[in-house]
């Protein structure tokens, strides 16, 4: 990576670095994947489709489909959550939370601690392991595998 070669494309160079998937998931063969950080709803709130012909208004928010999720509880901090919520598009969060079977109030009362806790859990504790993000305009699916969304555009989607 420090000394790029001439006359070689980036893709070819990457192909020469063979990182094989070793047994990160199942080292003991016990069937228990050890828990990894995977996509949460805060990230979903930031993502849009940037394919050709799709404006930000049309490509956001992506519809979340989750076929496999995990929950890992984290510390609740009301002030920190409120700060985070300043940059969150709340409607998109409500829709995404619904997709992972969590119902949030349509409008959030900052004094309602139970509601804040529910929002905190939806934002930070639900990890989408398998699923997809779907463009609301075109229906184009960006798959989520092993908790990592694949946002790579195809050749015909490039502007």
């Amino acid at each position: 990576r420090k000394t790029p070669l001439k006359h070689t494309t980036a893709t070819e160079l990457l192909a020469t670095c063979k990182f094989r998937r070793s047994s990160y998931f199942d080292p003991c063969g016990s069937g228990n994947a050890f828990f990894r950080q995977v996509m949460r709803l805060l990230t979903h709130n930031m993502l849009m489709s940037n394919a050709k012909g799709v404006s930000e208004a049309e490509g956001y928010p992506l519809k979340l489909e989750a076929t496999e999720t995990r929950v890992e509880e984290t510390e609740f901090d009301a002030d920190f959550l409120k700060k985070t919520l300043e940059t969150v598009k709340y409607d998109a969060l409500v829709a995404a939370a619904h997709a992972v079977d969590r119902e949030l109030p349509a409008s959030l009362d900052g004094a309602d601690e139970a509601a804040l806790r529910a929002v905190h859990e939806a934002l930070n504790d639900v990890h989408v392991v398998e699923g997809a993000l779907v463009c609301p305009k075109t229906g184009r699916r960006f798959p989520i595998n092993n908790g990592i969304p694949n946002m790579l555009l195809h050749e015909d989607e490039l502007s």
Partner: protein
Amino acid sequence: ELLNLEPGARKLVLDVGCGSGLSGAALERAGHAWIGCDVSREMLTIASERAAREEDEDEDEDEDDDEDDAMDDGGGGAEDSSEDGASSSDGADGADGSDSDGSDSDSGAAPEDRPVASAELLEHDMGLGLPFRAGTFDGAVSVSALQWLCYDNATAQRSPRRLARFFSSLHACLRGGARAALQFYPENDAQARSIALAAARAGFSGGVVVDFPNSTRARKHYLCLSTERRRRGGVSTRHASVFARSLGETTP
């Protein structure tokens, strides 16, 4: 320091070409949340393992030696030994990890003690444009990634378009006034200039700062960008000191 983030505040930072998460780990230590993009899913897998392991092992100083080995070698015979190494360390960690849902007394801290997770990862090619809505990030960093925008992709995406898409989308997804500190390895001056020019065209101001310019080994280029428009505008490759003064900050 270059990002000029408010001390003590937790910000959201983009790590472009985050690889196996080393630079992201530094962001986490500074208390920030980050989202990383990389074109290599393999590297992202390593990064997500690293993040989980660091959460589980507070006292365990046995760091990611095996992962570092896996990252450094490019293939061939060494690959097998590093893979075994990674497996054996994962073997030890797997026991902790599989209990991470709380039953293990050693690594499974009570939910109240767990920090809010900091890292998110995306598989994406920065040359396709960044898929984030406007004003998402408080800052952006990159280590050793931008030079790849100077090469044409196998799928016939030409370098100028890749540079343009990257910088215009970066500008859009940074909050107003946010900064980017992007370290890269240009093969030559022409590459450094084309990168700086593409940044300027996207509306950034700033410059390229070169650390240790006289050393071939230690020399590092940092593209320092701001979304604030300055009087001069544009991105300078030569007047690094002017850039530092115009930002009114301490010397990078």
